[in-house]
């Protein structure tokens, strides 16, 4: 299986601090890869480096066989890598419909944006996206009046609307109720019919719901990789991450 996204020996340095130390990973076509790890493990930094937000000190990022290391964010986005941030990054002053419209592929130039028409195809595409994120009935509502969870879905919708081959989601369920979390899991599973998905997550139940393959990061390095069962039974992982969480729960 050819990897859609390939990260080789990636190192990111922030004023002397090595946030990522030679991380390597592959993401296959329509695969869901979940990245877990304690705070400060470098999970978000990894996504930042892939999309060109954080400068890569050494190592390479390949997308569909082409090197994209240190390209600028809008170039990476145009190539087909969609990114969702940790906090909902949506346009509160616009409607859900307008948010998705902005994200649609193909109207990124200045002239195109002035002359573009709201075609049938675009409307259908937006409806398709809204159905996926379960917000079809909220199309013309200003985003500012949505709940936190719904805003997260709007942003997932914005990412899907770009028709990316690969979607990077940074803690999509942060701040969600358990019902919303479960629904998000279902959204991600449906997404994987069309896109590869990389998810950063803390919630182990959620990880079990969606994960095909898990990568554990710890202090900027890859600690383990494998299925849910493999990772859960990995002694190093239990020691640095899962175990501690268990102890935390026990203590609480």
């Amino acid at each position: 299986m050819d990897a859609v996204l390939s990260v080789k020996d990636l190192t990111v340095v922030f004023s002397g601090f090595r946030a990522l130390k030679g991380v390597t990973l592959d993401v296959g076509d329509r695969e869901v890869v979940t990245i877990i790890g304690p705070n400060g493990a470098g999970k978000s930094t990894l996504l930042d480096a892939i999309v060109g937000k954080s400068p890569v000190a050494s190592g390479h990022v390949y997308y569909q066989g082409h090197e994209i290391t240190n390209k600028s964010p809008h170039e990476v986005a145009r190539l087909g890598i969609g990114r969702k941030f940790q906090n909902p990054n949506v346009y509160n002053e616009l409607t859900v419909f307008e948010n998705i419209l902005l994200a649609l592929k193909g109207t990124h130039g200045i002239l195109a944006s002035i002359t573009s028409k709201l075609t049938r195809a675009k409307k259908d595409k937006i409806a398709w996206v809204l159905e996926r994120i379960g917000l079809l009935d909220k199309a013309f509502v200003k985003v500012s009046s949505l709940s936190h969870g719904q805003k997260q879905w709007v942003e997932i919708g914005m990412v899907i609307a770009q028709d990316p081959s690969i979607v990077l989601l940074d803690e999509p369920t942060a701040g969600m109720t358990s019902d919303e979390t479960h629904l998000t899991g279902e959204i991600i599973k449906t997404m994987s019919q069309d896109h590869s998905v990389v998810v950063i997550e803390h919630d182990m139940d959620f990880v079990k719901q969606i994960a095909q393959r898990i990568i554990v990061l710890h202090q900027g390095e890859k600690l383990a990789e494998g299925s849910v069962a493999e990772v859960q039974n990995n002694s190093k992982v239990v020691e640095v991450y899962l175990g501690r969480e268990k102890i935390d729960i026990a203590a609480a």
Partner: protein
Amino acid sequence: MTQVLDGVQRSTFPVKLFITAGIVFLIFFILPFLVGVFQTALISKLLLFGALAISLDLVWGFTGILSFAHGVFFTLGGYAMAYYLKLNLSSTNNNYGVELPDFMVWNGLEQLPWFIAPLKFFPIAILAMVLVPAVFAYIIGWFIFRSKVSGVYITIITLAISSALTTLFISQQAYTGGTNGITDVAVLTLLGIEITDINLYWVILIFTTLVLAGSLWLTRSNLGLILRSINENERRISYLGYDVASFKIFIWTLSAAIAGIAGGLFVPLNRFISPVYLAVAFGTQVVIWVAIGGRGTLFGPLIAALLLGQVQNYAERVTQDWQLIVGILLLVVVLFLPKGLMGLVPRINPDRLLMPSPNPSAGYVQARLLDWFTPLQGAFRTVQEWLIRGKRRH
């Protein structure tokens, strides 16, 4: 599934608004016959200031770039036109009976500088009126926006540009006429016909109308959506694949070109141009028109420029300190009307680009009316918005 979104369309230009605008345009068209020569000239000037305010609204109201340099773009266009009119003053009309403008004679120039000479020709002067401010803005914009300078730093740079150019123009007396600027220019003549004040008024009215209509059209396209998104969160939109810098440079340059044309039309009317319009004080006035009129409303800044100009005209007769009145008005607007004068007129405000086709329900209209007529509620909402905005800043 799809029929749910079938009704969606770009909200067409509201018919009522269109008719109102047509009537207003007609009134303005016949206005010179109803008011005196003085008012005709004053309104001509205020319409140009209105166009200037609209150009700033495109970059500040929509895109969030606060600029104090719009007076500079206006004045650069103005100087291009002023050189043209000055150079076309016949030698008999010139104080010194020579082809060289008077201020150059005073300052010992014996020959027309090569970079000013071509402005004697109308097409070149017209091109310069648009291109000098536009290219200048493009260069500044390229450096500012490509280097990702943002927020208040852009504003500081625009202040610096305004101050630097004022100093430059004052110091280069031989070329610019110094503090006095270029005065006693010729009357604008096209194809051998002298353009009268009333003709000039109509030209200006049509220009301002085109600027308003063009800006409305532009901001109602996807471009408007993108500009507003840049304003709210520019990082996010770049991850959607938009090159934010190029959009900013585009609107910035376009805005400067509009300002330049307004400045160019200002000179045949005003009969002089001087560094006063380069200075920060004038740039600030443009900012005030937009703030009082309502950011991102286009109509608002135009109306504010017209109204404040009239207020100033009458206040000046009463007191030298008319600026105090404008200052108090500004305070009131900033404190109580965060959306400016247009915040009082919710229907005309092009708040949403896209609307569902069914008309707003009766409940919605009622709520809007309540908003309108219950001042207490309005005040409460203002305070609420104020608090929320304060919180977001932290």
